[in-house]
């Protein structure tokens, strides 16, 4: 299967994602420059973290108008897999491929640290290798990761099984002190209804090698490959 990593000016996790796919996962991967309009050669597209176009306005709000966006939306509509990490998640919200919005962290500070996540849905292409309720350790690094969705839309999100990761403690308990950014209902990652587009604030590419202290993130990439093979 063939991966692509989008490079916006200001992306800064593009090379990290590329490295994991190429060197750790040993799958073919190429960069996608933000002005490209042709994505048909790819099976999975990663929108990496960073500060696309500087993000001086609201995270992801400029990238949404990027030349590559039409092709990306088209790719999603045709069932291609997309994973947006951190800034990538913010962009997916801005472009409307995922529901909800991001607010500034409750602390009003950038936060970089390891957090625990509870896997809420293993029936997606991104999580098939996890156990239901498994607790994983993956770091976050963001300013605006406080996920927001209107109260009345929240039940729908659960009914559609769109909530994939939630912040928890090491035992998988949901507690306010383990919600690092104030996200609504501890939500750290969601998919669209069709489950081919995932957005998550934590960085799986930073926890894909033993030497970095956790390999939990690699399971997401492995799940993708596994799902693709079975298709």
């Amino acid at each position, binding site marked *: 299967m063939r991966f692509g990593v989008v490079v916006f*000016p*200001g992306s*800064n*996790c593009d*090379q*990290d994602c590329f*490295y*994991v796919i190429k*060197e750790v996962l040993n799958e073919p991967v190429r960069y996608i420059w933000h002005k490209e309009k042709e994505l048909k050669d790819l099976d999975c597209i990663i929108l990496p*973290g*960073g*500060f696309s*176009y*500087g*993000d*001086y306005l609201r995270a992801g709000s400029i990238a949404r108008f990027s030349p590559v966006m039409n092709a990306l939306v088209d790719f999603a509509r045709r069932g291609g897999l997309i994973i947006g990490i951190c800034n990538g998640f913010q962009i997916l919200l801005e472009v409307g491929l995922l529901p909800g919005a991001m607010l500034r962290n409750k602390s009003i*500070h*950038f*936060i*970089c*640290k390891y957090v625990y996540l509870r896997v809420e849905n293993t029936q997606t292409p991104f999580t098939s290798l996890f156990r239901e309720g498994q607790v994983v350790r993956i*770091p976050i*690094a963001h*300013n605006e990761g406080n996920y927001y969705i209107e109260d009345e839309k929240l039940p729908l999100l659960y009914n559609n099984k769109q909530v994939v990761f939630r912040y928890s403690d090491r035992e998988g308990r949901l507690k306010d002190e383990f919600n690092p950014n104030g996200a609504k209902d501890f939500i750290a990652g969601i998919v669209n209804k069709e489950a081919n587009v995932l957005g998550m604030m934590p*960085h799986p*590419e*930073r926890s*894909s*090698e033993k*030497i*970095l*202290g956790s390999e939990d993130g690699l399971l997401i990439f492995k799940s993708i490959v596994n799902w693709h093979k079975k298709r």
Partner: protein
Amino acid sequence: MITKEIYRSLGLSDEEYQKILELLKREPTLTELAMFSVEWSEHCGYPRSRAYLSLFPKQGKYKALIGEDAGGIILDDLAIVFKMESHNHPSQVEPKQGAATGVGGIIRDIFTSGARPIALLNSLRFGKLEKPYNRYLFRGVVDGIQSYGNCVGIPTVGGEIYFDTSYTGNCLVNVMCVGIAPKDKLMRAQAKGEANSIIYAGASTGRDGIGGCSVLASSEFKEGEEKRPTVQIGDPFTEKCLIEATLEAIDTGAVVGIKDMGAAGLTCASSEMASSGGVGIEIDLDLVPRREEGMSPWELMMSESQERMLLCVKKQREKEIIDIYSKWGLNAVVIGKVTGNKELILRDKGKIVAQIKAKDLTSAPLYDMPYKEPEYLEELNKLDLNKIPKPQDYNEVILKLLASENLSSRRWVYQQYDHMVQTNTVLLPGLGASVLRIKGTNKALALTTDCNSIYCYLNPFRGAQIAVAEACRNLVCVGAHPAGVTDCLNFGNPEKPDRFWYFKNCVEGIASACKFFNIPVVSGNVSFYNESPQGVIKPTPTIGMVGIISDLRFITFPYFKDEGDLIILLGKTYEELGGSQYLKEIHNLIRGDAPSLDLSLELALKNTILEGIKKSLIKSCLDCSEGGLALSLFEACVWGESIKGAFIDNLEFNIREDAVLFGESTARVVVSVSPENLSSLEEIARNYKVPLRVIGKVSDQAKLIILKEKFCLVDLDLEKAYKLWRDSLESLIMV
């Protein structure tokens, strides 16, 4: 017509102006005068410090590279490039932008060498947090570092922060950047080859930062001055694009030389590239991209607008380079060419506005500065321990120390910095050194910064030696061989003999310790005039050190791992409390002498630890520094993913108890080993003649217990103590 008022307002002395007249054999134009003023300032030309900087060793175990801006060491096929620089004065005036542009400037120094920046560290000093203005400065500086560093995608992996009254009117912001390049791709800051093109790339030029290096950084703060306009404004997004575009441009092979336009902007970049390459440069100022109308030639030459580079590019390959920059949305314009006559010639609207030999600009005068030991020092060094009451309650002392502004956890700060981007960070920031693996190799880098300015204030020569020794120890504890030093020398007004005495002694201390450890000083920066009406800073010669871990298996962590492991103290504790945090926090005293230092013992300790690590005997390793043994034990207990306890029942108490627990004797390290490995480690320590004592055991109960014979000196609940340590800094700021 140049008047005395004009050249003096630019920071030039009567003698310097005379020298300019002699060199030019005519009156300078305003543009030329401005150019001399910045190039001859302490910030660029080092007229007052250069003579002493030549004392630093230039070679060591690893081959050293010493270039125009950053320096580095060679590791196999790679060059590890690093440098530290200050941005003190701008940060005192405008903390967020001052710190942000400090980060931006040092990053450019690294990638202009062709190296990809892989890590940032920063060493910060502020006045005490009880003053609201100091809290404002601290928060502003942290905000500046996070906003810039996070956006450019370079992890901020370490550093240090101290608070002391002496920094009240003049905070210190020292930033270090480390980069990696294939060694055959390194660039120099040189122009070469007649008719090659000079290309300006990056952000456009405005009126920001004019006089930043000559007027702001080269004089003391005086009462009621408005210096905000001299501070530059940073744009990390442009910098990020500039990094990618510049590394791509260098990769083409079309770039002959390159330099960033930082302090002294276009003046510094053009004159130093010409001088270093032994050529001349002609520039047409009308072609310089600008963001403001009506800028005069001297303003263009003095501007310190950020995120700009000057490149010397091979003739006829200009378009290739310009296309790369435009792909990244950046300006790139041919503004001049290399000539054979060694002169820097600037034209404005067709008229020559400056014509100077490049060497004249870059050969700043050299001053022989008078120095004198301050009279108060002899009295200050006296410390009668008999007059220091011993504590009644040791638990209370430990809690007070670990909640103090200087010893509490720096978590609130480093969690605001992205310290994991680029996915190399193996040992996260927080204690001693940080560790980054080098992708594509089996090796890792260990990075640290260190300086105890109280020691340097009490004893500048030894204090500076200790800064080097402690930086080495930090690196050794994680399994690294100390390999190279960059320094940032922060002092008061060098024209005052007592200030200069401190500078001279600190430099000599660093030079002697680096020679002893066989580590080269590859780059650095001097920041003088760090004083204000509120006084002079304590001498702060910050050491940035890079170490090499030769095999990823040797990476060692600072925290206790398993119940039942033996806790060992390597080294010897003396009855010395001078300059300690204990004396400062508990007895409100800053006096005495800096701790004694036995460099040979430091070296023996290094050999013991590295051999113990190589033989897989050592499970954890953390040195003793500020706060003494008690703080090291505490940190080794609480720093892991889950809290461990320590049961200490075999300390040697032949000196005062407070000196045993809180004294800051050098050359000491706390290690833990499995019981079956004790005898092997003992043998290594015996061979190197390093004192070794098993002082206790790691326990599964979250308690730190220290016994003196049967008497319990310390019985600390570590869950509670940990929370206090973790949250204290935040609570001191959020008042």
